[in-house]
């Protein structure tokens, strides 16, 4: 029995279907991240799980119970909002105690739980303060504390870190991971940041235009993206795509000829148009591996530990990650290799990955 299951869930606002046929089965204690560009329906899906949004079609189950029409307060769900949504007129203590008071818990139990959460989150010195006297990071912690004290069966996070600066975001990300390990509650986390998705998730759900593109573990999504969108969305900088045609076991395009790997040679047909995808980190300058490409360096971005070089191959732009030891000059033409087995092929029409299962 799945802890949480969404079967054929859809949401319609007027004439627009913002979520279409969403299917997902979540195990107890699992950390699921919904990721996608803004407007892809990930927040709407989360709000349907929370009960803040009505479900147009499909079935939402919590355990064995169908909860489509169960109000939020009876779903045993706590939610952390993007805006934190703290009650500005209440102290940190009262903010965390509010939900417990509404559930009529005895005062000593409320005290104990708030104290406990405050200790976990390092909020003990701030319990009497109002939200406006807190920094962004502290407010974020209060928002989390308010969810923790409830000891809910499900945690929902709606882009909880997107209002923090980069450094704090990194800190809070590890903190959320630590909290999840400690509390072990089933969590659904919405973000548009693929790094958050990769680092936090047990499984990632990639969405686009209300449709699930792929569901899988972070490494699986990285290694075997189901389509061009997932391939481009997961990983940073994004995967490179070159347009070409299959001929004689090679992909030929403007300015390049690249050998097909054995795993790709089977499913493709000669004369077929394909998109050749390879990740920036698959690029080598040491000549190892079989496939060689030549491009002109257009822009180089030194990041300290590595250099991102934007190269033009027959007018198509690709990016590669190079060691800073390797000297690159803008305008220079360089040859580099990519292991054909590390490449991906996509159908330019359907944008689906071309694999041997075709």
């Amino acid at each position: 029995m799945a802890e949480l299951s969404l079967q054929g869930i859809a949401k319609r606002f007027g004439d627009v279907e913002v979520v279409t046929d969403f299917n997902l089965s979540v195990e107890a204690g699992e950390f699921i991240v919904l990721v996608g560009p803004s407007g892809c329906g990930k927040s709407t899906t989360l709000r349907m799980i929370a009960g803040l949004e009505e479900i147009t079609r499909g079935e939402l189950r919590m355990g064995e119970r169908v909860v489509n029409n169960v109000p939020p307060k009876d779903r045993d769900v706590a939610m952390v909002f993007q805006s934190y949504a703290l009650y500005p007129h209440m102290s940190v203590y009262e903010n965390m105690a509010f939900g417990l008071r509404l559930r009529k818990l005895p005062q000593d139990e409320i005290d104990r739980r708030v104290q406990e959460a405050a200790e976990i989150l390092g909020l003990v010195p701030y319990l009497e303060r109002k939200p406006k006297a807190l920094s962004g990071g502290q407010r974020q912690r209060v928002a989390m504390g308010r969810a923790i004290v409830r000891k809910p069966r499900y945690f929902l996070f709606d882009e909880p870190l997107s209002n923090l600066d980069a450094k704090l975001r990194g800190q809070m990300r590890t903190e959320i991971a630590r909290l999840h390990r400690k509390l072990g509650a089933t969590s659904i986390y919405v973000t548009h940041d693929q790094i958050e998705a990769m680092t936090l998730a047990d499984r990632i759900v990639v969405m686009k235009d209300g449709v699930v593109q792929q569901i899988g573990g972070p490494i699986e999504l990285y290694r075997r993206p189901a389509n061009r969108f997932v391939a481009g969305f997961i990983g940073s900088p994004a995967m490179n795509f070159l347009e070409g045609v299959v001929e004689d076991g090679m992909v030929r395009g403007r300015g390049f000829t690249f050998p097909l790997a054995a795993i790709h040679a089977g499913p493709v047909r000669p004369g077929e148009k394909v998109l050749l995808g390879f990740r920036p980190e698959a690029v080598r300058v040491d000549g190892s591996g079989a496939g060689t490409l030549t491009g002109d360096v257009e822009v180089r971005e030194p990041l300290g530990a590595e250099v991102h070089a934007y190269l033009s191959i027959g007018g198509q732009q690709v990016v590669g990650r190079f060691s800073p030891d390797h000297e690159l000059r803008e305008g220079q033409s360089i040859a580099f290799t990519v292991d054909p087995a590390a490449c991906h092929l996509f159908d330019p029409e359907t944008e689906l990955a071309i694999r041997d299962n075709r």
Partner: protein
Amino acid sequence: MTHVKSHEINYTKLLSHLVLVVVTLMTLYPVIWVLKMAFTPVQGFSTSLNPFPANPSLENFSYLFNDTPFVRWGINSLVIAAATTLVGIFLSCTAAYAFSRFRFPGRKGMLLGFLVTQMFPGVMMMIPLYLLISALGLLDSLFGLILVYSTTSLPFSTWMLKGYFDTIPQDLEESAVMDGATRGMIFWKIIIPLARPAIAVVALFSFMSAWNEFILAATFMNQETMYTLPVGLKMMVGQYSTEWGHFSAASLLVSIPIVALFFYLQQHLVSGLMAGGVKG
């Protein structure tokens, strides 16, 4: 250099202070004049420019308290204004919340209707209101006036509060919903405390309009014991002579509750109440 500069600043300061002092005196002079007449036991209109009473006495005040139903009128006014404020706030808060948060058929029409009623002068409503109040048997009754006042201030209060409620983020309510709060709890525990500044303004407005209203009170109240203060004060202005001393003393007393209320409500007129609640 600094020496010269400090001189310049002093001249500018001197000038601006001079202007302020003059304007303040001009504003205060009539008030001081009322004070003077209130403490002068003469009913005539003194034309002397001297703003201080020659022989100060409390005679006018003692006349008001002992020889007129002034206290009774005060109580009437207080009851009416207080009840109007409470009823008005309750009705406008609940109505404004509904207008702000719910989408229901007729919402726009009703909001517009509220505005339209504000475009007619109040005097126009006098006859129809009189007929209504008379039919309800509420002439010469405090309740009648409370009913009329609290409903006439309703459109302004509702619009004002709706505007404020609109600025309270929806996230706060959804967060409370997740915490397990009902609509009612959200309204009383989240929305109302956050709307304190707007409610204070609406309270002051309701109280003042009920406290100062003359025409309807004069129309609906015929027994002298049911008069409100403005109607009572009018008694002192006769066709041929005006009891300026009594009138001034009464005017002073009438303004005290308004001033007190203003000072009390001032503490709620704070900005930044919503700070720190939501971000982004």
